[in-house]
């Protein structure tokens, strides 16, 4: 099967307009005859649900949280980018497009990225109209921040809770449609499988997490807005219940999975403090504006940070990257920290952190200025660690954060299964091999609110004569049986190792070999270890409780079963890409001075993997072409 | 219109009724106090040619009482007051019952450090005040105005406050009233929606002063008479 990105013809800046001018539409009277299932209720899924429901489609939204307002988009801190050029600093849609392509190390699709930059402008208007209290100047006009990897201020923010505020607006738009009756929400429901009829996505099998009942739901199209799978590392900045199961089960039904190994490791999270730790809290990247990152020059230096004199400190980012210093992009900063820790200079009880020091900034600007800029972050730091960061340096550590990879989608955001769409972090588009700060909220919101509702009509126009889809067909029977069998299988293991313990072991393997720096030997080792662990899971996992009723151990086990397969594909994907690009850093492929080295001759493609069963995969390549941008080497020296 | 009437049954509207009746009653307390203070002012305060031929505290107080009972506009205000008080009580009962229904199972372990005891127990304080009012009216209003068995109110007041149990009872009632006012005053303004932050700060301060002031001034009258 050849990949068809369905990019519209025409000049880059006109593609979206031309697409809209020529696409098929569904007339308003027909829309209410069409059912759409949306999975996930964050910015992408929720935005899609609300916008589609506004258009008059029958929307059913499924999510595992108790309310759509808790989707993990809520946790995004920094902001959302938009090429508004409010600061008069010369920002344009093209500049934003350029920054995103470059930040992604030339591994994303031009047309999609350009469209995201174009629609960013509308998004800010939309969110403001919905009541998002963006930061403002005293004049009453919107204020902007600057973020890593760009030369203009284009980031809109609502304090350190931008994601929450955007999500509230989206959630409220959803609730409005629930009241109108065009949207039905199914909270505490988890998708377990997809139903394909004649090759088209026609429904889902879900488990009601409260009663344990397995339900069937049919629709003319299915949209996935289920986010990323970074929780595969166990310790990550993601929510505990974020998972890759929906995308993965779609993959197993025929949707290609693209660039699975590209995971952004965020450099400034709080380090692991003990074995029982479940989560690494993110500290905003903005701290690097005033904080200096260092480790002791001496190995295993056990002195308190304030006792180490300046000449015995190694400000390694400033040393290695004099031009950008502490403000190098996320992937570079994370890798540099790992390099120091591996060399034995890590600090803290577990030697897994580096210092982020504000002493210089406090000395220069005074405590008050620092408090005003980062007060809430210092408070958060204190809440979690109990340490006053005004007096001693913060301890920070890299943590898994964002999945650039995901379901392969074309320009219309359709996966390789007709009628199955993927929006937001669940798809692979837009970010290439590394995501720029404040672009994730943007992509999720734009996909859900502006792109999908427009592209899906092109598909649904042919569905107006289909009529309601019955759920008593053999395809639904088979899918339901498979789901029930898997639940029975999980519950019959009755082993001795708790699910979380296996997940932690998986996380360790992944973080060691399939994270910031990868090499052939390590990846091959990781694949073997993952297979062993998968075997251990299916023979020795301790999954208690039963299937009829609430059972979070069973939920976790189902998700882990999928992670244990995703992990293997991630390692295989990393192994197949013999180059370093963005977040994918292969130690064998570096320049003479130790920096990442791309291989555009051989690897200028997105790797889309097709599931062949028992796990095995076939690679399909979507070759990337850059017509409107010159391909260069990223350098931050 | 049916919907609009429905709005008057909402929790916020019910709280408004509590607030308005409460504040009205609280305002009456000031008037009532003005009369009562005659009881503790020294004779020298009363000029001889004041208000007819009244010469002392005794006559002044009785003249004041006589005026209250026989001046008809005051009676109208009094009936509004009784109605307001009754509404305050009925509304409180309805609210308490609704709130009771809203509660889930009881917590096994409780911790109340997040609020003051009197703000949580307005109902109990109100009940104490209610009982107190009934006794208080039985002792004076009933005998003087309704039954007419007593004609010299001043004399009745002094006689009553020489009884130890009465003074103790009054002090309890008045302390309850003080706490009820401290919370009730600000709470009523909150219910009515006096939201500017600066107002709220001032109102909170006034509420505390008002509650304590009323309790102290009302509280010393029986004590002074008792120890005279």
């Amino acid at each position, binding site marked *: 099967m050849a990949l068809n990105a369905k990019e519209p013809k025409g000049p880059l800046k006109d593609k979206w307009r031309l697409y809209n001018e020529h696409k098929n539409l569904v007339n308003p009277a027909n829309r209410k005859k069409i059912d759409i299932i949306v999975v996930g209720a964050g910015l992408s899924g929720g935005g899609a649900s609300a916008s589609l429901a506004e258009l008059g489609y029958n929307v059913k939204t499924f999510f595992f949280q108790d309310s759509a307002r808790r989707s993990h988009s809520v946790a995004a801190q920094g902001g959302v980018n938009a090429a508004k050029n409010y600061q008069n600093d010369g920002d344009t849609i093209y500049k934003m497009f350029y920054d995103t392509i470059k930040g992604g190390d030339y591994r994303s699709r031009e047309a999609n990225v350009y469209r995201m930059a174009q629609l960013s402008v509308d998004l800010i208007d939309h969110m403001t109209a919905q009541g998002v209290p963006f930061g*403002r100047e005293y004049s009453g006009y919107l204020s902007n921040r600057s973020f890593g990897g760009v030369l203009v201020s284009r980031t809109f923010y609502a304090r350190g809770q931008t994601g929450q505020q955007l999500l509230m607006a989206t959630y409220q738009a959803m609730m409005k449609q629930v009241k109108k009756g065009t949207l039905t929400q199914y909270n505490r429901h988890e998708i377990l499988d997809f139903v394909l009829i004649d090759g088209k996505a026609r429904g889902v099998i879900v488990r009601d997490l409260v009663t344990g009942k397995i339900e069937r739901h049919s629709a003319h199209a299915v949209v996935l807005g289920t986010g990323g799978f970074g929780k595969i590392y166990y310790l990550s900045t993601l929510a505990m219940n974020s998972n890759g199961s929906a995308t993965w089960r779609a993959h197993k039904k025929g949707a290609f999975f693209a660039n699975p190994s590209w995971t952004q490791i965020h450099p400034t999270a709080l380090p692991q403090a003990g074995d029982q730790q479940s989560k690494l809290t993110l500290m905003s990247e903005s701290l690097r504006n005033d904080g200096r990152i260092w480790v002791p020059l001496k190995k295993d230096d056990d002195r308190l940070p304030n006792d180490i004199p300046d000449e015995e400190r190694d400000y390694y980012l400033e040393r290695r990257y004099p031009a950008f210093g502490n403000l190098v992009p996320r992937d570079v900063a994370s890798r540099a920290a790992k390099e120091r820790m591996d060399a034995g200079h890590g600090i803290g009880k577990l030697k897994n952190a580096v210092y982020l020091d504000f002493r210089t900034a406090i000395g220069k600007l005074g405590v008050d200025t620092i408090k005003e800029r980062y007060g809430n972050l210092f408070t958060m730091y204190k809440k979690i660690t109990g340490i006053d960061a005004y007096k001693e340096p913060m301890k920070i550590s890299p943590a898994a954060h964002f999945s650039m990879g995901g379901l392969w989608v074309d320009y219309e955001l359709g996966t390789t299964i007709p009628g199955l769409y993927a929006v937001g972090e669940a798809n692979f588009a837009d970010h290439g091999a590394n995501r720029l700060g404040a672009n994730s909220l943007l992509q999720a919101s734009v996909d859900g609110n502006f792109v999908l509702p427009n592209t899906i009509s092109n598909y649904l126009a042919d569905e107006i004569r289909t009529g309601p889809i019955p759920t008593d067909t053999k395809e639904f029977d088979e899918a339901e049986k498979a789901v029930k069998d898997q639940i029975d299988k999980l519950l019959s293991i009755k082993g001795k190792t708790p699910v979380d313990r296996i997940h932690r072991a998986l996380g360790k393997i992944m973080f060691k070999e399939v994270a910031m720096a990868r090499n052939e030997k390590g990846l091959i080792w990781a694949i073997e270890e993952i297979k062993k662990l998968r075997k251990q899971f299916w023979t020795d996992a301790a999954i208690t409780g039963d299937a009829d009723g609430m059972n979070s151990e069973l939920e976790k086990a189902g998700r882990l079963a999928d992670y244990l397969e995703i992990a293997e594909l991630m390692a295989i994907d990393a192994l197949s890409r013999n180059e370093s690009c963005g977040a994918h850093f292969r130690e064998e492929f570096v320049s003479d001075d130790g920096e990442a080295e791309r291989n555009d001759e051989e690897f200028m493609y997105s790797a889309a993997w097709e599931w062949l069963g028992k796990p095995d995969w076939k690679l399909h390549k979507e070759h990337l072409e850059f017509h409107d941008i010159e391909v260069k080497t990223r350098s931050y020296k | 219109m049916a919907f609009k009437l429905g709005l008057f049954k909402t929790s916020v509207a019910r709280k408004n009724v509590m607030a308005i009746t409460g504040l009205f009653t609280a305002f009456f307390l000031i008037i009532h106090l003005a009369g009562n203070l005659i009881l503790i002012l020294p004779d020298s305060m009363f000029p001889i040619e004041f208000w007819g031929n009244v010469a002392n505290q005794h006559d002044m107080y009785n003249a004041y009482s006589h005026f209250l009972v026989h001046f008809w506009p005051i009676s109208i205000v009094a009936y509004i007051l009784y109605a307001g008080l009754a509404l305050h009580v009925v509304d409180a009962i309805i609210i308490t019952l609704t709130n009771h229904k809203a509660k889930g199972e009881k917590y096994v372990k409780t911790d109340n450090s997040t609020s003051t005891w009197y703000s949580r127990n307005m109902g109990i304080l109100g009940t104490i005040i209610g009982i107190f009012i009934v006794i208080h009216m039985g002792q004076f209003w009933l005998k003087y105005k309704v039954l007419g068995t007593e004609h010299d109110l001043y004399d009745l007041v002094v006689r009553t406050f020489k009884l130890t149990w009465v003074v103790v009872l009054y002090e309890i009632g008045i302390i309850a009233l003080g706490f009820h006012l401290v919370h009730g005053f600000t709470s009523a303004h909150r219910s009515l929606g006096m939201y500017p932050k600066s107002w709220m700060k001032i109102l909170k301060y006034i509420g505390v002063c008002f509650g304590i002031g009323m309790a102290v001034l009302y509280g010393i009258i029986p004590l002074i008479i008792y120890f005279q």
Partner: protein
Amino acid sequence: MKITLKIWRQESAKAKGKLETYQLNEVEQDMSFLEMLDMLNEDLAVKGERSVEFDHDCREGICGQCSLVINGQAHGPESHYTTCQTHMRSFKDGDTIFIEPFRAKAFPVIRDLKVNRDSFDTIIQAGGYISAFTGNAPEANNIPIHHDISESAFDSAACIGCGACVATCKNSSAALFVSAKISHLAKLPQGKVERKERVEWMITAHDEEGFGSCTHTGACAMVCPQEVQLLDITRMNFEFNRALCIS
């Protein structure tokens, strides 16, 4: 640290629940409260017993899913923390900790420590939004909003919908939750168009969902993880009375 736990166990909404006692011997100070519960659940899994069900998700204090009453206090002993931000360093070796679900008629227990907070969604559905359809929006800078007003709207909008206010309130009132949304939208020019209907519908929904009335004890604002202020309730009452007066 050795910790004794008294945890509320309840099979379903209709079943009767009771406190069960558990013992943990290797709790560390650096653990978060929920990690301590993870530890307990791992012990239970090894023993083959059903795990303790509790709600949690982001574990960084923003999603609002975690919902425990710890020693009688919603979200634990520290004020303005969520349960997931509470760490074991707030407790001492040998402590006995009572863990109960949020309690209110409108928050029925689903199982153990998980409660159903759908009523919050219902309240927002009643009117907690601005009816601007996708694609309708005017240019964002067309409506200048004073910095302080925008910030004040943010203070209210910060509500995470956890329900600690209801759990703490002696009347199980959701006034703080409702008022946060009403204030957020009433403060902004975009939200002023629908303010009358919004407050009427949302307060009616609040009462219909079976929450009690507000008596301004202030306990809700003391536990609120986002420090939503009691003043918002006053603002809501103002909006309500305004709606009554102009109708």
